[in-house]
């Protein structure tokens, strides 16, 4: 089960739950699992975030896969200058 840390913004839809584990191995399945577990969340909220997979931040993770031991972190997208 991959470990997922949800952003501060996403925690508003999870009753404050910051960390969960998921059975998904693909980003798309991860989104589906999140929306099923937290009905208040929607795709637009998830899509606002980048996803860090094992420490590597991916701005557009649509096709990403990850392992059972992966650590996933949803993080707000950051603009540079």
């Amino acid at each position, binding site marked *: 089960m991959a470990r997922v*840390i949800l*952003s*501060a*913004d996403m925690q*508003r839809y999870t009753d404050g739950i910051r*960390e969960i584990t998921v059975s998904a191995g693909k980003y798309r399945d991860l989104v589906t699992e999140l929306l099923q577990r937290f009905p208040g969340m929607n795709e637009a909220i998830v899509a*606002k975030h980048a996803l*860090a997979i*094992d*420490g*590597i*931040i*991916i*701005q*557009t993770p649509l096709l990403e896969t990850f392992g059972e031991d992966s*650590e996933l*972190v949803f*993080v*707000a*997208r*950051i*603009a*540079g*200058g």
Partner: protein
Amino acid sequence: MNMNVKTEFKYVGTRPIRPDGPDKVTGRARYGADLNVQGMIYGHIVRSPHAHAKIKSIDFSAACKLPGVLATMSADDLPEPGDRKIPGGEVEMALKTFSPVVMARKKVLYHGQAVAAVAATSPELAAEAARLVKVEYEVLPHIMDMHAAARADAPLLHDDVYTQGVDPAPTTPSNIPTQIEISTGDISKGFAEADLVVERTYFVPMCHQGYIEPHACVVQTDENGKVDIWCSTQGAFMVRTLTAAVTGIDIGRFKVTASEIGGGFGGKTTVYLEPVAVVLSLKSGRPVKMVMSRDDVFRATGPAAAAETRVKIGVTRDGRITAIETDILMDCGAYTSHPIMAGVLFNSACYRCENVRSFGREVLTNKPRVYAYRAPGIPQPVVAVECVVNEIAERLNMDPIDFRLLNAVDEGDVMAIGIPFQAIGLKQVLQEAKAHPHYTAELKAGQGRGVAVAFWINAGMQSSATINVSEDGSVNILTGNPDIGGSRASMALMAAEVLGIPVETIRPSVVDTDSVGFCDVTGGSRTTLATGGAVIKAAETLVKELRKRAAAIWSLDIEEVDWTGGMAVAKSGTGLENMNREDAATRGDKTLTLADLAARAGATGGPLCAVASHNAHNAAPSFALNICDAQVDRETGKVDILRYTCVQDAGKAIHPAYVEGQMQGGAVQGIGWALNEEYIFNEQGRLDNPGFLDYRIPVASDLPMIDTVIVEVPNPLHPYGVRGVGEVPIAPPMPAVVTAVNRAAGTRLCHLPLSPPKLLAAIEAAESGTA
């Protein structure tokens, strides 16, 4: 996902003369305002004289009576933005937060906001016509103070802004578009474990990026609907995307060419003039040039946010940080671009701490919409964190670098947002700084020293590159990223490394949006990493093709052919011992140079070219440290920076001189922000210092030579170990300078800038015992 990172280089890491240098020093280089085309007319913006007002009517009739006035426009010529989101330079943006910055719709929210525009046959006539445009306003109360704006009873700038990030979702609008909080551990427990807790509040003012070249563009449209834009920008593709969105014109009709750019620093990652010039060109049927004055640049483009940060840090008596709490209030001007995110997420990212709480709110005021400026959102809270860290080290009687070494994050440590660090160079940076002669140099009475460190996350994103080989074997690289900090030279060096040919034989070019694949903006410290990554990929593709062509000539399998030293070599061929000879006749019959293969390209499959595109997911963070020595004139309050040293982990420095330039430039900008730079608004909400006479940026004579030390801890995710370079240098200067100045003056000023009047008053207060 760590990869084999190359560590031995022939060309990367050298310092060739920049390919664009001669053009720039001789004046041949063409900037935004340098293009002139047949039949061109000139646009001029009508700007709001009020900080907050309803636009009741706009009457162009008097302006249109002037002979030579050929077009007018207002927001009525642009589509309603609605709730549309569009991809911006780096993050998704709401069209309604920047379409009105191009041209106000129904209301003006800051002095100098664009309200209308005219185009005429000369700049003078356009300016005269703009003065004749009659705009009727209903003046509304303006609000300039962010604390006042944050209050529930404050006059509203927008009636449809509801604070995001609050539960339950608010039912009434406010001037606070965003609230964000992150936390890890138990902050109360962390402070309970502390032997010493220091809490301070620091204010950093709104300031401008101070790029020397004002915004400028030339737009040409034709009867087929084609729209050509020439402009000064950090991203031609970004201009295409945003201008299409603001004007409602299909993106496929645009071709955007980025001129040379005289500085951007994040401020040119959006559009201001381009959509206006497009509409004026379409309406007049003529090419339109628009150039901002310096006054326009200050009043109507996007400065960096002002912010107030309260920071509270707890430590044990042996110097271990037990808790860090920050609370940021950030003044975003009239529309949000969400600069607070990075400030909340990363303000204490340099430190290992189990208990962190970081809270932030953005506030809207009747000031220009703030926009990106190097490491957006980070320098403001870092001032507070780093100054308090220095104070704590002093109170614990610890060396400030030793204190930081004790608490510095390293590989495997986890940020407060939950992301673990890969290989990083913070400790190496700290050790290099401690070993630098500057750090132990003696200070005289009345002088002070400050140090500070900072972090920036860096970005990857999308880039493309094309490599073409000419018939003589010379190589042309095409990319779509405007060259701000020396990217052309860096691209050439990386291509030279892969191709094994002298860097001087490679000509790198920045081309228009029709001539290369999509590239995100030059910003976010991403270009060398991401566009350079595309160049490496394209060069590797080209090498494979060259091996294939040589194999075909020799009737060999491609696996029997190597590419080494800039030539194809048959692994089993004769003459390998001579392969480095310049004379082809003595090299043996189983070597083929790039020129040899280029000459036979037609016979072996056609022109030699390679294209690559990618979305770089391999960015890695950077850390920087600054050491500042300052002296304060106690009679005038003037500060002299006596000595200044920057240390930064750049990953592999592709062109070290450019890395040093980025470090020095960031230091100079941060010194200016610390000592003098600030937007000063009067009671009418008008900016009182919209020019370089009254808005004081440092010049060369103000500063010592800034020493640099590049630390090269390779990014384990990049084939050459590249990290980003350009963002993080802006973050440590302010706290380093503030600490040095306060120590020199015997003050504890927390309200920037430390300008002479403020410093003098603090010195006098300290001397009279009233501080």
